[in-house]
């Protein structure tokens, strides 16, 4: 479904990613792990079109994504959440989610200005769907509160609902449990499992090993901009390179800072 081929990215002289290749199959929960600064978030920024690769190709369902604007990539079916939460703070939870449906609301200027039935029906459907998505992540009771008033964990869940509102085929989650306590983590894990069961393909970046091992069917390990291992969770656990680079030390360390 998503294929990265020999992707490299350098910022000036700094090689952030070198010849990164991997494939995310449809229906999978795919994990990308690696120590802080390994270049994980850069991978997401490349996929979503926020930055362009220095070389290599990224393709989604067989079509290249290079040179496609971020909002067009979203419309092709890739949605993401952010490591540092980026909800629309001054908007209600409901509006946050409805913003995600932007590309799927299709009414004419006349319909909008005159409040024609087509416009009203679509807006009503959007609200119904937004309530559904919010209850899916357990936030429907707060639908009319401002996003700013929500706790850290709830804002992450809101981001998830907002990403789902774009009707993605592939969902990119950038450290979804960073900075959460154990209770919040297992709660969010249940939510993500539930989403995966609905047939979404999920690509998750994460530090928390237990979380990744429990969730993903396939894992790639990134270290200093290179993929050093890829395989099933059990294989990754046993891989000596991975143990040396990552698992052997500090796997429960503070995960808030930038990757």
């Amino acid at each position: 479904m998503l294929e990265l081929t020999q992707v490299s990215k350098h910022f000036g002289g700094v090689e952030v990613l070198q010849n990164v290749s991997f494939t995310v199959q449809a229906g999978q929960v795919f994990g990308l792990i690696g120590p802080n600064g390994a270049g994980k978030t850069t991978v997401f920024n490349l996929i979503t079109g926020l930055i362009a690769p220095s070389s290599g190709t990224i393709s989604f369902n067989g079509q290249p994504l290079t040179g496609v604007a971020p909002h067009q990539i979203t419309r092709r079916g890739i949605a993401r959440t952010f490591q540092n939460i980026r909800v629309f703070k001054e908007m209600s939870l409901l509006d946050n989610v409805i913003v995600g449906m932007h590309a799927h609301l299709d009414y004419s200027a006349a319909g909008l200005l005159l409040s024609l039935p087509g416009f009203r029906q679509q807006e009503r459907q959007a609200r119904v769907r937004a309530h559904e998505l919010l209850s899916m992540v357990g936030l429907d009771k707060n639908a009319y509160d401002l996003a700013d008033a929500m706790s850290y964990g709830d804002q992450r869940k809101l981001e998830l609902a907002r990403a789902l509102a774009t009707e993605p085929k592939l969902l990119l989650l950038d450290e979804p449990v960073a900075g959460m306590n154990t209770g919040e983590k297992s709660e969010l894990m249940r939510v993500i499992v539930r989403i995966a069961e609905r047939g979404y393909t999920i690509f998750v970046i994460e530090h928390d090993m237990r979380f990744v091992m429990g969730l993903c069917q396939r894992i790639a390990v990134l270290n200093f901009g290179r993929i050093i291992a890829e395989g099933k969770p059990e294989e990754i656990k046993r891989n000596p390179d991975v143990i040396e680079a990552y698992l052997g030390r500090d796997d429960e360390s503070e995960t808030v800072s930038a990757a």
Partner: protein
Amino acid sequence: MEGFDNFWAVYSNLVLSIGINALLAISIWFTLSCGLLAMANAAFMGIGAYTAALLTMKAGASFTVALLGGIGAPLAVALIIGMPTLRLSGVYLAMATLGFGEVVRILILNAERWTGGALGLNGIPQLTQWWHVLASLVAVLLVLWRLRRSRVGRAFEAIKEDDVAAALMGIGVMSHKLLAFALGAGIAGLAGALNAHLTFFIGPAEYGFERGIDILTMAVLGGTGGLAGPVVGALVITLLPEFLRSFRNYRLMINGVILVLIVLFLPKGIWDPSRVRQWLKRSRRGMPDNTAGVR
């Protein structure tokens, strides 16, 4: 009825100025609501005023055609200059658009054959009736009200809060910024066209930096959170000089002080729907609320 006639004879110009200023305050609302500080609205007003005035005076066009021209010309210019400048953000956009404003002013000053240069255009037919201003204001407010409740209004708000996140929600950030900029320019042009056919005379000095600051002050003072904000702002800023006649030399200074005070103490302007809602809630509960403003 006689009382009203007297009042109208004396104050009709002032009342119509309030309406025109409200249109101007709304014109900058569009870009502000996308989180863009674009300062070109005085220039767009000028383009609209000169286009409309030249249409009625030199081309003998009807008032309707003149108004449409007054909207269309700045809108077209906005689309052209918006493409490069709206890629800038924050203070850089403000500088670029201020620069554009100066360019327009100097062009008007030097195109003497058409614009009369520094002497301005004299003898513009007084075609603007009170109901033209009222109808324009109502129509613009209606459009704004509809827009805010649609995907376009939500897109503006999302772009204001975080344009990267907005783009990743599938929103075409650049096209929405351009739309906001062009709509604002059209409305500023409409205000200019109405004003030109009200005041008999227009000159290039009216559309300079000071006017730009006035427009911004009205919008920020009134508040950009609700529809009534720009209207309230225009009301205050237009009436204030009347009450402060003895300080007229300090008018700009007083406007500046007001702007600073508002930003410091009422960052969301005089008309802030969420604050009004909070007041209502508190008075209904009938007891003081220490958490006011914290949420």
